[in-house]
């Protein structure tokens, strides 16, 4: 019975966030168009630069677009995940969170439900990126099964990012602070990862950071699945590391959320 209640709590918290998401038409349009712009614009802009044998050797991929597509998927997920905390700040601001906290709703289920909603959104958006990439001629070496595995990676990565966002949001009372904090995190995190540029082309110190950057753990297996094929060592290794991180961060998000004052 208790377990049923807990699952139901997560479900309805998640449902509420998804209902909100589906009612934000402008935001949905923006998140749908953004990855298309990324792929079309950057992919094309760079094609002159990247279509020479030397760069392709660095990229280790059929084209820059093939190289970029997994990066764009991870980046889209990154933004979606980090947006999760905004919901906490708003709900607290509007006292809706307080109202939820005064019901028997499990206090562990609230952050988990919000993270679940972020994961669903992340998946929707990544599917859009996937379709765009397919239309632009990116070939997925591992086919439909590979895409399923990609979505598993995306879900894990999204829950990590949403957990970070929620843990950071619990004591923040206004939006400006929250967005400033998120900007502060995303830019360096993105640019120092293996998402945008091949690690072989990086200077030593950056290479070191990129090696440890959590984004890299999501990008590398995705890139392997798209451009190389079933390289099980890479896939298992990243899967275990991401699972481990996801569990730690979920626990962290729940801990910080429960500790916060109303």
């Amino acid at each position, binding site marked *: 019975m208790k377990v049923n*209640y807990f699952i*139901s*709590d997560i479900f*309805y918290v998640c*449902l*509420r966030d998804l*209902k*909100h998401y589906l*009612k934000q038409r402008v935001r949905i349009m923006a998140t749908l168009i953004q990855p298309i712009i990324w792929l079309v614009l950057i992919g094309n802009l760079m094609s002159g630069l990247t279509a020479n044998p030397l760069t392709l050797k660095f990229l280790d991929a059929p084209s820059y677009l093939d190289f970029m597509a997994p990066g764009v998927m991870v980046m889209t997920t990154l933004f979606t995940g980090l947006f999760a905390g905004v919901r906490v700040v*708003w709900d607290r601001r*509007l*006292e*809706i969170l*307080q*109202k*939820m*906290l*005064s*019901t*028997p*709703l499990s206090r562990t289920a609230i952050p988990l439900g919000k993270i679940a909603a972020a994961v669903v959104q992340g998946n929707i958006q990544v599917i859009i990126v996937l379709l765009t990439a397919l239309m632009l001629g990116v070939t997925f070496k591992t086919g439909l099964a590979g895409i399923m595995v990609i979505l598993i990676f995306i879900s894990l990565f999204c829950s990590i990012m949403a957990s970070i966002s929620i843990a950071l949001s619990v004591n923040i009372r206004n939006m400006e602070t929250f967005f400033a904090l998120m900007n502060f995190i995303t830019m360096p995190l993105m640019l120092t990862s293996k998402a945008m540029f091949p690690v072989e082309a990086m200077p030593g110190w950056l290479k070191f950071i990129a090696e440890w950057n959590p984004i890299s753990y999501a990008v590398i297996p995705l890139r392997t699945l798209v451009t190389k094929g079933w390289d099980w060592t890479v896939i298992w290794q990243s899967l275990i590391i991401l699972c481990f991180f996801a569990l730690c961060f979920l626990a962290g998000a729940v801990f910080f959320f429960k500790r916060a*004052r*109303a």
Partner: protein
Amino acid sequence: MKNIIEVKSLSKIFPGKITAVNKISFSVKQGEIFGFLGPNGAGKSTTIMMLTTLHLPSSGTAFVSGYEIKKSPRSVRMQFGYVSQDLAVDDRLTGYENLFLQAKYYHIPNQTARERIKILLNLVELEKRAKDLVETYSGGMRKRLDIACGLIHRPKILFLDEPTLGLDIHTRRQIWQYITDLREKQGITIFLTTHYMDEADSLCDRIAIIDHGVIKVLGTPQELKSRLGGDIITLDIALTHVAKIPRLIKLLKTLTNIKQIKTAKTKITIVTLHAESMMADILKIIQKNSIPLEMVMLKTPSLDDVFLNFTGRSLRDEAGNREQAHKARRMLRRIRS
């Protein structure tokens, strides 16, 4: 009657050494409408938030329907409905969706939820707008929806933090009606806070006046008013008959229930606990002695006088500020959409 809420020496000290609530003790009886009356920052909301397990008390304790707030918060949460000071309804969802989610937070089965929502929508007169986004609701409609949300699980106790703040007179009356009906028909105990004197006076069975986190006085509105001495009757005797005043006073003193009689020139002031019933007797005496009256005045002390007496300031001056603060808060929310 049984006490449904027992508060024992409850305190809340916020970081920065702000003592919002300072060792208050009181109890609320089952089935009564209990009011907290106090100015801005008195600690009304903080008290409610401790009783609803939203804030952890710094010291002291409270029992809500037999459950201790610190030891069994989850059981406490099943006992009450909470309607916060701000309009905590989800304006991106419809009225129906708001109620349905609230039902699910209390793990009410879908079929039961649907039935109850129908009844509640009917109660707060929102059936026609149930499928519209709350965004399109007026302030009064939102408040009514919020109250309906607080009732979805049929709670024993309803906490209403300033239920009529910022509403027009018609909507306020309507909400008073719901509150009295809930008590009459369903026996729900109601704990409300307010800064409106008339609201406390006409709605509450008992009132606690709270200021700077301390309960200054507690009792029925009638008791509180009589603490000030009672009602005051003033008689103004025609100048031509001033000579008869001493004899009149002697006669008046024979009446029971008179606490005090004073004279000043042509005026006689009588302090009594039961002015309405005394009035007839007094007038009878005056008529018998054929004394012409210039004027008769009856003044019942208002809760405002009580408030002034116990806190040293008038609540009326605060009212304007509060409305402004509330408006500012509502404006802030609009920025979102």
